[in-house]
Structures are given as structure tokens and as C-alpha cells.
């Protein structure tokens, strides 16, 4: 199986020093993605879209695939991808987070793609890599790596029956990767016949859906240990890379707030000249700088299939969830009243940050996972 290998019981990370920098190629990529998002996904439109029939920007998604070709960065060229790695994917996620862009990138280009890669799937992968088709992984978005294989869906006579609640990026998905039990045995199937019921979500820039399968035909992608491994690889890779999206959200919050307190005057002074505000933002800058290192490490670890990948992913979520929520909460507070209004984009980032902190498991679940991974046993053991 591909994807992160099992972690060794040692607590020392892989010997070759991880590359925590951004390569020139990655910086190039960032510039292109940021330019596209600035042109096609202004926050005002994203805000209006959250109240429209279709909160997801499918046109922007197509542009990411057709124009920038970033929907398959981690996919080998032989499978129709760009032959880059999860490191470059992480840079795209930073920019998507910074723009709180309403596209199914995380569900399709990360979660589903990681599952397909881990399962050595070759039919669907090229279409997903090109962005021609949107795929989603049919698991609750709150599912943490290492969770029990889901039993929500059952396969009987080759047909799927069941429901999966609160799935990310499924509203616009053409095809789903569905973990299901076939005669009690884990399986991963590609399914095109399903109903996706929109869910009023805390984060309407990544709206959730409830999925229902009523005797839907499915194509077997993996079964048994391979299915379990593919799901685990998808969730671990997702947890590692979500931190880069969270980093982008936190960066927006920090930079926007710093700019605002330089402009906003109260008591005849810039608000940013008050020491309590300065120190709060200084502490936030320190946290965001740390998150950048943590997110780079996680992306590097899953990109290289490091034995430390599970640790890196759990660390990334345990850390990113706290920093990014705090960053957006500080942004609202330091903007004062205006940051609490619907018109100001701050709440879009607050909602994305809080939702992302729950997605793929809350920080405390990832800390508990670390306890097992780095040999810090809990009292009950």
C-alpha cells in the first residue's frame, strides 16, 4: 500500500532533515494561485454565494483544474497528474485558505485523491486529477485518522444501502468513494448514484451534505486491508494537509488585523499603537510562524511517505486547530464592532477555522493519538 507507512515505536523522527522551506517552484505556484483567486473569488462574492442556491464555485474549480492544472499535483504523470507532490498541494491549500475559497479542492484533490492513490486506482484517478470530475470521500468530515472503519453503508448483492451524514465537498461531487461493509468485510467503492441533501453548515464556504444510497451500484476500488489502508491514508494525508489550509486562514487573519489596527484610530492614535494590541498580535505572529513550520513538516512527511507521517499529521491538527481558531477570534475582537458584522469577511474565516478545527478530529483527539504514537501512555493504560 502507498501513503504513510506505519510509524515506528521510536519517538525520533526520520533522520534526513525535513525541508521546511518553500522551493522556488512552490513560490511560483503560490503566485499563480493567488492571482487567480484574487481575480475570480473576491470575498464579497464568496459571502453572497453562501446564501445562494449553489454555495460552491464550480467555475472557479474548473479554472483551478483547466487553467492552473493544480487539481492533480500529487498524482503521477502516468496517472494523468502533474507528478509533483503533496508539498505543492499544500501551497495551493494555503492560498485557498487565505481566500476562504468555496471549491471542493480538499475533498476531491486531497481526500479522494489520497484514497485513490493509496488503492492504486487508475480509472478514476486521471479524471479527478485533471479536475474534469469532482470526487468526494463519503465519510463524516469529523472522522479522525485511526477511527474504526465506518459501518454506515452496506453492500448487498453488489448494491449500496445506507446513509452518511455531514460529508464535505459532496454537494458538487460527480463520484463518491464510499467506505462500506460487504458481508462485514471493509470495502471502498466508487459510486455515482446517490442523493446529497444539503446541510446548513457552520462553514458555508465548504458546505456539508447528507448522503443516501438506496441500492446504488458501486465499482470496487479496494477491499479488506487495502480498503482500510486507503481510508487511513486518505484521513492521515488530509489531517496533515488541512493544516496548510488552516495556515492560510490564520495568515489572512493576522495580516488583515495588522493592517486594520494601523489604519483604525481611536483616542487620536492608531489602535495598533496600544501595547496590549501590539503584544497580542506579536504573540499571534509567533504562533503563526510556528504553524508554518508544523504545516510544512506535515506536508513534507506525507509527501515523502515518512515513517513519522502519522505523528506529523496528528501534531499538525493538534496545533493548527488551536492557532487558527485563536487567530480568527483575535481578528474579530481586534476589528471591534465591524468584525462582528455580516458584511465584513472576518466571520467567514472564523467559521472556516472553527469548522476545520473539528474536521478530521478535534485537537484533543489528535493529542490522544500522539500519546499512542510517541509513547506517552494515558493513566488508564
Amino acid at each position, binding site marked *: 500500500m502507498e501513503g504513510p507507512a506505519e510509524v515506528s515505536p521510536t519517538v525520533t523522527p526520520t533522520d534526513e532533515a525535513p525541508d521546511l522551506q518553500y522551493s522556488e517552484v512552490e513560490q511560483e505556484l503560490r503566485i499563480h494561485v493567488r492571482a487567480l483567486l484574487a481575480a475570480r473569488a473576491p470575498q464579497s462574492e464568496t459571502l453572497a454565494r453562501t446564501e445562494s442556491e449553489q454555495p460552491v464555485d464550480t467555475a472557479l474549480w474548473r479554472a483551478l483544474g483547466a487553467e492552473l492544472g493544480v487539481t492533480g499535483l500529487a498524482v503521477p504523470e502516468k496517472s494523468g497528474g502533474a507528478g509533483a507532490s503533496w508539498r505543492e498541494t499544500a501551497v495551493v491549500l494555503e492560498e485557498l485558505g487565505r481566500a476562504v475559497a468555496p471549491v471542493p479542492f480538499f475533498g476531491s484533490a486531497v481526500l479522494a485523491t489520497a484514497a485513490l492513490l493509496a488503492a492504486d486506482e487508475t480509472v478514476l484517478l486521471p479524471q479527478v486529477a485533471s479536475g474534469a470530475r469532482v470526487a468526494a470521500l463519503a465519510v463524516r468530515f469529523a472522522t479522525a485518522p485511526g477511527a474504526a472503519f465506518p459501518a454506515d453503508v452496506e453492500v448487498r448483492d453488489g448494491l449500496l444501502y445506507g446513509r452518511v451524514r455531514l460529508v464535505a465537498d459532496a454537494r458538487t461531487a460527480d463520484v463518491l468513494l464510499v467506505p462500506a461493509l460487504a458481508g462485514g468485510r471493509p470495502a471502498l467503492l466508487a459510486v455515482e448514484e446517490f442523493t446529497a441533501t444539503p446541510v446548513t*453548515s457552520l462553514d458555508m464556504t465548504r458546505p456539508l451534505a447528507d448522503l443516501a444510497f438506496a441500492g446504488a451500484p458501486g465499482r470496487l476500488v479496494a477491499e479488506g486491508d487495502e480498503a482500510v489502508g486507503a481510508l487511513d491514508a486518505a484521513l492521515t494525508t488530509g489531517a496533515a494537509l488541512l493544516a496548510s489550509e488552516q495556515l492560510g486562514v490564520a495568515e489572512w487573519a493576522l495580516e488583515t488585523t495588522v493592517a486594520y489596527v494601523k489604519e483604525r484610530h*481611536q*483616542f487620536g492614535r492608531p489602535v495598533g499603537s496600544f501595547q496590549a494590541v501590539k503584544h497580542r498580535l506579536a504573540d499571534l505572529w509567533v504562533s503563526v510562524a510556528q504553524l508554518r513550520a508544523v504545516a510544512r513538516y506535515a506536508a513534507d512527511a506525507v509527501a515523502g511517505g515518512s515513517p513519522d507521517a502519522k505523528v506529523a499529521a496528528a501534531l499538525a491538527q493538534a496545533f493548527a486547530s488551536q492557532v487558527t481558531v485563536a487567530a480568527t477570534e483575535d481578528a474579530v*475582537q481586534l476589528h471591534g*464592532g465591524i*468584525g462582528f458584522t455580516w458584511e465584513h469577511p472576518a466571520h467567514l474565516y*472564523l467559521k472556516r477555522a472553527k469548522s476545520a478545527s473539528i474536521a478530521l478530529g*478535534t485537537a484533543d483527539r489528535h493529542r*490522544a493519538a500522539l500519546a499512542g504514537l510517541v509513547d506517552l501512555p494515558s493513566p488508564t493504560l
Partner: protein
Amino acid sequence: MSTAHPEATAWTADGLRTAVRELLAAHDPASTPTAEFLGARYDAGLAWIHFPVGLGGLGAPRSLQQLVNEEFAAAGAPTLDPGRHGIGLGMAAPTLLAFGDDDIRSRFLRPLWTGEEVWCQLFSEPGAGSDLAALGTRAVRDGDSWVVDGQKVWTSLAHEAHWAILVTRTDPTVPKHAGMTYFICDMTAPGVEVRPLRQATGEAEFNEVFLTGVRIPDAHRLGEVGNGWRVAQTTLMNERVAIGGHAEPREGGLIGLLTRTWRERPDLRTPGLHDALLRLWVDAEAARLTGERLRQQLAAGQPGPEGSAAKLAYARLNQQISGLELELLGAEGLTYDDWTFRRPSNPSMEGGSPGYRYLRAKGNSIEGGTSEILRNIIAERVLGLPQEIRVDKDVAWKDLPK
């Protein structure tokens, strides 16, 4: 009927209990309409007992007010919804009493108390939040009235209120604290436009109020021209007390919702969340006991800056508790109840969804004095630490950077 009562100094707990009983005997609290009952209570001087006779009071010691309230509550007497009348009762009334002339007080206090007239507060502006004294809404004298132009924001109840307490700038050429004047504003007057202000929760609890050539008779001025800042201080001091003063049962407020979910949903429990829950339970109980201790103090004494401490503590608690609630709910924490634009009649965090609570609590550290301002108040007024260095004290308002 004031003559029927003994002198102010003579008022005792027993005397007041008797007065309450007389009133209850004459006006059955069960059958008498609220406004009528409250009117009778006002006329009996049992509204604000420390107010003067004839203005809803008896000139009695303020320390006995609580006893009177409890007597009426015990009898199931009707009261006003604080969500709708809190600004009038808590902020407008003390200001009207302190700065209004006889005409003002007799015209406005009774319908305010009976709930027949709703009040709102036109203080904050887009450019004047924490720095209220920076406000720029102009009031220009024109004969025996004033013409007001400007924009106010974060105004609760503006769309339901008949009257507003309003602070304006009457002299831009003097330092900002000196050039302000305080008025009563008729919200039904021409030129008053109220627009809902939508917030992060999706609904609009507050309003923006645009004032365009609004005429206010000089008779509706409170305090001297240029004295608006001092008048506003009276209003705001009472606000903080109103917020900090009430006591709660254990696990009252948001912590109770979190503990209920914890008890009812064993499937959601994790060790990490357990310790976080217990930490918040401890902090909430400490804040509750502190409020109770403050209440015991205030029952006798005057309002102090301790109210700021309570508001500071509850803002942080509400934010931490509502944040942990979403983490505890996990997958369900990713959902929301309704984003459609609404005007809630009586918003309450307890009544909302967990997602609503999380978002609404963010406002707790901004509305009614940001937590940063409250810390300054505590540092300067309680601890006696030096004030912030002021660069705006001696500059004419019009010359300040904005």
C-alpha cells in the same frame, strides 16, 4: 398620595412591606394589566424607591429596593421584559432623573416605567466605538431647537423604540470631551432612518440609525450644552452595573448547557474534553460566586468598577464555553440552524443553537465596552495605574486623526 407616607429617613423594611401589601391589595397582580399595575406601583413610589416622591420613588434608601422587588416577585406581580426595556430602565431612567428638569422627568419616567414607551441608545458611531468621545454626529442650534445630522450604529431596539438618548457634537472646535451635548431624541421624528445591522450570526439584533436634519427641541436637552460627556458617563456607569449585578444559580448560564450535553451524551466524551470541561466548570463557579459576593456588596453600597470585572469574566467564559461545546458536539458542531436574515424579538444565547452561541459570544467582548477598555478601567480606577498617554486631550475634535 405622597403625603400619606412617612418621611424618607423614616422608611424601614417593615414600612415598605406594608406599602407593597397595600398596593397588592388594591391591585390584584394576577388580573391587573401590566401597564396598569406598574402605573399603580409607580404612583405608589414603589418603582425606584430611592427616586423622589412623585417620580416613582419615596426618597427611601436604595439598599431597600431589592427587598421591594422581592416582595412583588413573591406575589407574582408583572414586570417588564428586560430585553425590551433594559435600556430604558437601566440607563435612560437614571440619566433622566439626574439631568432632566421637572417637565422631562414627569413626562418621561412614568411611561418608561410602565413599558408604554420603549427607549434606545444613540451613542456609538462607526468612527467612535471604544472612543465614544470621538463621535461626530453634529447638532446645530436653530432657534429654540437643534438640527442633528450623523450616523449611529449598534443600536438595539431602534426599530421598536419611541425615544432615544442621544449624544452629539455641538462644538468641533474644542477638544472632543468638551464639545458634546446630550439629548432626548424622538425616534418617530422626520429624518430618523433605522436600518437593520446584520451580524455574523446571520440575524440583525442591532441597527444603524441615520439622522438627517432631525429637529430636537432644546427642551429635550439633558445637561448643559457642551456637558454631554458627563451626562453620558452617568448612563454608562449604570450600564456596567446592570450587566454585572445579577446573581445566578450554579450551572446557570452557558455552562449549564455544556454540562447537560456532557451528561446526556456519553458517546461524545473524551479525556481531553473532560479536563477542559472541568476547568470551565471551575471558572464558571468562581465567576458565579464572585457575582454573588458583588451582589451582596451592591445590595448596600454604590455601583463600582467591579461590574467591569464581571462583564470581562463572563465574556471570556461565554466564548470558551461555547467554543468547547462545538468541539464536544464534534460532527454536529459543523452544522448551523439558520442563516436567513432575521430580526430576533428577544435574542438569547441559551435559546439559540450551539453554533449561534459560539458566534454570538464573540460579541460579548466588544458590545457595551470592549474587554480591552474594561481592563483599562480596572487598571486605572481600581489599581490606580497611570492612564494611557493621551494625544487627543488638547486637540480640537476637528483636527484629530480619524
